[in-house]
């Protein structure tokens, strides 16, 4: 197991913890890029999905968006972006936003649409306006589904940001891409450990956020205790 010892030595090496190519800088690049992409995508996707769900319009489009998104390889989106906006952080950002939008639109649409018609009618019967129904009834009930979409998108963004090292951007993927190019498998492995840890941490952080944001009243009914460590699988709805 001398290989693993080399990996441990790689992590212990002080020079890997400072400067542009140091772990703290690469990690913060990765985290900031992920946050920027997910927040931008959420601003675009959530109002769209929620609006369409509330009006119950454009369902075919909203549901198929995630299927179409899945069919386009994220690697291809990334490389195509370089042809449109050049190399560096900008194409990475654009590609990541494009990737994160579809699952969020689809999940928020389905979450709102699938709120029980009876619950909606009861809210109407109590004299709520359309906006009130949306804010007080539909959104809280759709919250687990909406957040599952955000989780799927965020985990995918962390993953694709790793490949973005190929288009001359930083992030933790640098170690893997450079290591592969130099046949330095210790660096490759160390980079992979860092990326894997970051994705699992993202997943767990969002699962905890979901615990906090989902209203207590529907929490026990909807969320499954076993799912904390399980990435939400895209909805298997027939197109």
């Amino acid at each position: 197991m001398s290989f693993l010892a080399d990996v441990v030595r790689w992590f212990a090496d002080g020079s890997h913890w400072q400067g542009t190519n140091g772990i703290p800088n690469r990690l913060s690049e990765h985290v900031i890029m992920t946050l920027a992409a997910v927040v931008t995508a959420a601003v675009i996707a959530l109002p769209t999905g929620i609006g369409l769900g509330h009006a119950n319009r454009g369902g075919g489009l909203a549901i198929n968006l995630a299927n179409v998104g899945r069919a386009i390889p994220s690697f291809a989106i990334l490389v195509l972006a370089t042809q449109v906006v050049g190399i560096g952080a900008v194409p990475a950002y654009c590609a990541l936003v494009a990737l994160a939008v579809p699952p969020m639109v689809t999940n928020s649409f389905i979450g709102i649409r699938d709120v029980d018609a009876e619950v909606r009618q009861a809210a109407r019967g109590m004299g709520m306006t359309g906006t009130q129904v949306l804010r007080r009834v539909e959104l809280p009930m759709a919250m687990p589904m909406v957040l599952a979409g955000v989780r799927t998108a965020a985990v995918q963004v962390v993953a694709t940001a790793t490949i973005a090292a190929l288009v001359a951007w930083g992030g933790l993927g640098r170690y893997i891409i450079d290591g592969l190019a130099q046949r330095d498998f210790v660096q490759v492995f160390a980079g992979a450990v860092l990326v894997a840890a970051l994705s699992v941490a993202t997943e767990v952080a969002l699962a905890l956020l979901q615990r906090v944001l989902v209203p207590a009243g529907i929490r026990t009914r909807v969320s499954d205790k076993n799912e904390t460590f399980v990435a939400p699988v895209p909805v298997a709805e027939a197109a």
Partner: protein
Amino acid sequence: MPGTGLLAAGELLAASDPWVRWDWVSRHTDDIAAATRQHVELTVIAVVIGLAISFPLAVAVRRWKWTQTPVLSGTGILYTIPSLALFALLVPWTGLSRTTSEIGLVGYTLLILIRNTVAGLDSVPDEVRESARGMGFTARRQLLRIEVPLAVPSIIAGIRIATVTTIGLVTVTALIGQGGLGQLILEGLTRDFRTPLVVGTVLSIALAVVADVSLVGLERLITPWAQGRRRTAGVR
């Protein structure tokens, strides 16, 4: 940063580079066909092995409750780890090989397939199970002759997602020397040449669509009893 200088120089040329140069395509039809074939092979092997592993695990999860948490958490963590990182974790042990690609690709199919198989088996109505028992079916025959056929739509839904996802992920294996159509996409990047990039992307999407449509057709073919139900559901 390998390739950066090359890319920067290529930037200047990009303006005059059309999205598709058909003369390049016609000169490279053999390469394109070989890449497509490799893409299909990598995908089919991954999904078939994925099914072979996930089916017994799905049955186990339903029979022994204690297996649920380890199986779902384990495959969930596999699913969460970015594809490039998973391949990179395997490279020191299995090299830049097809084995590395397949282990990674199979890893991604497991959670999707197990979840859908479990959901499908769970959806079999209790009355149906009781009737089967009443007719003297053993547990194994009941599973294979009654529950699995009724779970087919859900299992196929899982296979569809797993297949389409795998077709996309295969492109990433270009970075560890495999890749199928991903090689064309990578070539487009390293040579800053749009034609292979566009050809690789379009064919990859086309493969995903063809695979998805074929699986829907397969489902219709092997679940003839669901035909009438589908039609009434459509009318409603």
